[in-house]
């Protein structure tokens, strides 16, 4: 993807006018809280994505990018708020300037408009997680398993996996519903055939017996076996080829079937009872429905609780426990609502199915009513059937079912009041028809039987197709679940391994055996970590806040590596490790430097110690920093650009500002000697307040340096390594000269001199002092400009192995033969 070469910010957030040169390298913005560092993070995020997380999402309330993105003095002029980023596309090496202003935040200009860079920017826009704060990172660790799964899946862009799973589940549900309906059609058609044949089971022997009995009357060849594939009426003369087939006995049975269904609606009464009970439960507590609607919101709010301040209502609660209990109660209530919803849907489907069965009975009687029924009885029956269709349609949603409560309680079937009379008159009219002759009865019997056989055959064909669709949908869903679950398991195993490796590297001193388990299960993602070999626990069970910070960052890095692979080239880490202690931060710097050499990290911190560690470990070059001192509303951050200390001193001296140059030199020496004492194991008398004296540090560094030169010389002799002997001799000579020069000028940086004698200390007097110290400090740095690293001891298994720099150009063996 991309790296950032330079950043220009105008009238954006707390910044009025700021230019930073990053040169595609890792960069640190450091300074006290409230000095404007976050403005840089916001500007990078805005330029690259068109968004500012701080102004969006939960807890942002009435904030908006348009109104609150510009500097407060330009809040009515969003076009003035502009960020320009010079980006380099990592693969092609091409660069362009991306410019975006708040007024037209959704679009950006690219100059020159290089396709590779535009494509890279569009990919970055899909990954807002490239800019993360501690609060966002720690949520991967502290989240409930269900929420963690959501967070991680959102980060990895896995939400589409869930969306597709949901689509395929819906497909399966609809196919199942269609199939159920087709099965019901088969049952209905079979019932009609069995009613006509006057049998209670559709067995081949029974069917064959009834059919052959009539075929024998008509002297037709008997059927060997009457199955649903056998034409029952083959050879029968059809007296009414286009009319309604009528068989008196069968017609009376159809009318009677409808009459009986009215008195005992079979599956309907049970389903209606259960549905009404569920609706009553819902109506008794309207908050259940609201809870269902708010469920998602509460789940997200609970995951973001980090104290007594509620991220949803933006109010302070008595305690974090009170707030958590309140939100958990809400969630529990919505879980009940979700369970109730499932019951409602199941029972509503049953009611709809029962209505369908009713309609099939009505449809059998309608043609009879048209021929033999009283007045407009067939029209009344048709209207009733249409009403049932509409009634069925109400049960596709909970709101629809709720609206039918009154009808469900009183008379769900809602037959016309005149129905008993219609059916009585219809039966009487059919009864009054003279009995058919034996041959006519046999003929009509076979013709009706054939019609109903065809209906059964057709219904079975449809059912077979719907069944096949349902089976295919089921297989698709299960194949998808198995494929997605395997992919997720593999992914999580890889993330778990990488996460563990990173964490062990940061905590090699006390948790070198650390293990982690990342286990997906039923939409959740459980994270358990080893605690000093005593068992696997949730990460926030026993580990300190600092360790949790470290875990959050390690998990984030593992996830990003998995997601982007070699495309992980840029990340903004906004004050992410505030709780990690000093020694582990140094290891963290090493991890970022060694494991992610291709990634440009832009890191903000309020902690000067960590900022110095980033530079001393070589994670960021000394030139790749911006130090923010303070901030004012009118001018924005007061900051010190990344300037080599020697250049800054030279600038001071050019202005004849010797006191400033001296103060800068002393600060630089104190900081550098402190790092060097650590790097070389220099011995300094312990001070509880950690405020070490300049003189103590200098002695410690010089003593250790001398000692390790002695060890290196002895080792070179033991191996008879002439080249090493030569290098050591040269280094010793340089050291001798530098130490003499430094000793001659060391008085000049005494604090007392600074405070009392500067009026008479000229630029010419001070320049040799600077040169002497520069020469002295060069003894401890690599001469390779790309390395710039300070030398340090390499220790293995408690033994000092070498004195070297990061790139290895400076490398003295300390182990003797």
């Amino acid at each position, binding site marked *: 993807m991309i790296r950032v070469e330079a950043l220009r910010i105008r009238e954006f957030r707390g910044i009025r006018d700021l230019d930073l040169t990053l040169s595609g390298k890792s960069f640190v913005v450091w300074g006290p809280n409230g000095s404007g560092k976050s403005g840089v993070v916001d500007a990078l995020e805005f330029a690259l994505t068109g968004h500012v997380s701080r102004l969006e999402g939960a807890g942002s309330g009435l904030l908006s990018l348009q109104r609150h993105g510009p500097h407060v003095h330009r809040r009515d002029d969003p076009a003035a708020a502009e960020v320009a980023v010079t980006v380099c596309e990592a693969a092609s090496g091409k660069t362009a300037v991306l410019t975006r202003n708040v007024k037209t935040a959704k679009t950006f200009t690219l100059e020159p408009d290089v396709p590779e860079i535009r494509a890279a920017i569009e990919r970055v826009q899909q990954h807002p997680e490239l800019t993360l704060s501690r609060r966002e990172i720690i949520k991967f660790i502290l989240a409930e398993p269900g929420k963690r799964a959501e967070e991680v899946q959102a980060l990895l862009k896995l939400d589409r996996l869930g*969306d597709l799973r949901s689509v395929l589940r819906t497909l399966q549900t609809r196919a199942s519903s269609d199939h159920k309906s087709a099965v019901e059609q088969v049952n209905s058609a079979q019932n009609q055939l069995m009613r006509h044949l006057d049998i209670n089971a559709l067995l081949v022997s029974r069917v064959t017996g009834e059919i052959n009995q009539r075929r024998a009357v008509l002297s037709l060849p008997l059927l060997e076996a009457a199955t649903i594939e056998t034409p029952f009426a083959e050879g029968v003369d059809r007296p009414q080829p286009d009319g309604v087939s009528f068989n008196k006995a069968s017609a009376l049975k159809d009318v009677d079937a409808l009459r009986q269904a009215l008195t005992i609606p079979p599956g309907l009464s049970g389903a209606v009872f259960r549905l009404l009970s569920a609706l009553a439960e819902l109506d008794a507590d309207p908050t259940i429905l609201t809870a269902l609607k708010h469920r998602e919101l509460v789940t997200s709010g609970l995951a973001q609780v980090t104290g007594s301040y509620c991220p949803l209502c933006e109010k302070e609660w008595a305690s974090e426990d009170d707030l958590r209990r309140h939100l958990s109660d809400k969630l529990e209530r919505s879980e009940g609502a979700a369970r109730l919803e499932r019951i409602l849907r199941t029972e509503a489907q049953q009611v709809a199915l029962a209505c369908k069965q009713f309609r099939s009975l009505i449809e059998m009687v309608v043609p009879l009513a048209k021929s033999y029924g009283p007045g407009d009885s067939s029209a009344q029956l048709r209207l009733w059937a249409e009403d049932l269709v509409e009634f069925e349609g109400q049960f596709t949603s909970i709101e629809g079912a709720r609206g039918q409560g009154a009808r469900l309680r009183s008379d769900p079937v809602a037959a016309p009041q005149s129905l008993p009379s219609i059916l009585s008159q219809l039966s009487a009219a059919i009864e009054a028809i003279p009995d058919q002759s034996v041959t006519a009865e046999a003929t009509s019997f076979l013709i009706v039987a054939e019609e109903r056989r065809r209906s059964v055959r057709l219904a079975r064909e449809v059912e077979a197709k719907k069944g*096949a669709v349902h*089976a*295919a949908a089921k*297989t*698709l869903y299960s194949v998808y679940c198995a494929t*997605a679950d395997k992919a997720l398991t593999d992914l999580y195993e890889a993330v778990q391994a990488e996460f563990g490796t990173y964490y062990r590297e940061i905590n090699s001193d006390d948790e070198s055996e650390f293990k982690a388990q990342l286990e997906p299960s039923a939409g959740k993602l459980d994270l358990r970590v080893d605690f000093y070999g005593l068992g696997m626990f949730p990460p926030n069970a026993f580990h300190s806040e600092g360790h949790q910070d470290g875990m959050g960052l390690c998990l984030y890095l593992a996830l990003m590596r998995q997601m982007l692979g070699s495309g992980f080239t840029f990340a903004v880490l906004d004050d992410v490790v505030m709780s990690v202690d000093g020694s582990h931060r140094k290891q963290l710097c090493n991890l970022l430097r060694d494991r992610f050499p291709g990634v440009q990290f832009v890191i903000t911190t309020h902690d000067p110690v960590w900022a110095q560690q980033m530079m001393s470990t070589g994670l960021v070059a000394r030139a790749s920093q911006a130090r923010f001192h303070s901030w004012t509303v009118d001018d924005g951050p007061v900051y010190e650009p990344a300037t080599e200390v020697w250049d800054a001193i030279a600038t001071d001296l050019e202005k004849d500002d010797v006191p400033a140059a001296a103060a800068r030199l002393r600060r630089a020496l104190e900081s550098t000697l402190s790092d060097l004492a650590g790097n070389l194991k220099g011995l300094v008398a312990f001070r509880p307040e950690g405020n070490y004296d300049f003189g103590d540090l200098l002695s410690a560094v010089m003593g250790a340096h001398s000692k390790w030169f002695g060890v290196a010389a002895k080792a070179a002799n033991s191996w008879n390594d002439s080249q090493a002997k030569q290098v050591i001799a040269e280094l010793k000579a340089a050291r001798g000269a530098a130490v003499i020069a430094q000793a001659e000028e060391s008085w000049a940086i005494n604090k007392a001199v600074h405070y009392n004698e500067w009026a008479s200390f000229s630029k010419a007097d001070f320049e040799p002092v600077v040169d002497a110290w520069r020469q002295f400090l060069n003894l401890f740095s690599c001469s390779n400009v790309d390395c710039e690293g300070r030398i340090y001891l390499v220790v293995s298994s408690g033994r000092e192995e070498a004195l070297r720099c990061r790139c290895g150009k400076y490398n003295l063996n300390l182990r003797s033969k």
Partner: protein
Amino acid sequence: MPSINEEVVSAFLQQVAVEDSLGSTVAAELATAFAAAKLPKADDLLQLLTRLTGEALA
């Protein structure tokens, strides 16, 4: 590099193609549906399966 979503969809279609009850025709039609819409609608997939299983029966 392909996203995890793309990898899963690709593996899913490969598995569909070798399933006895589904097969390469279903896989090919699904691939077309996924190419047309990254997240097809359930109704469209239902129509697709109905058409394909209907054709198989004929």
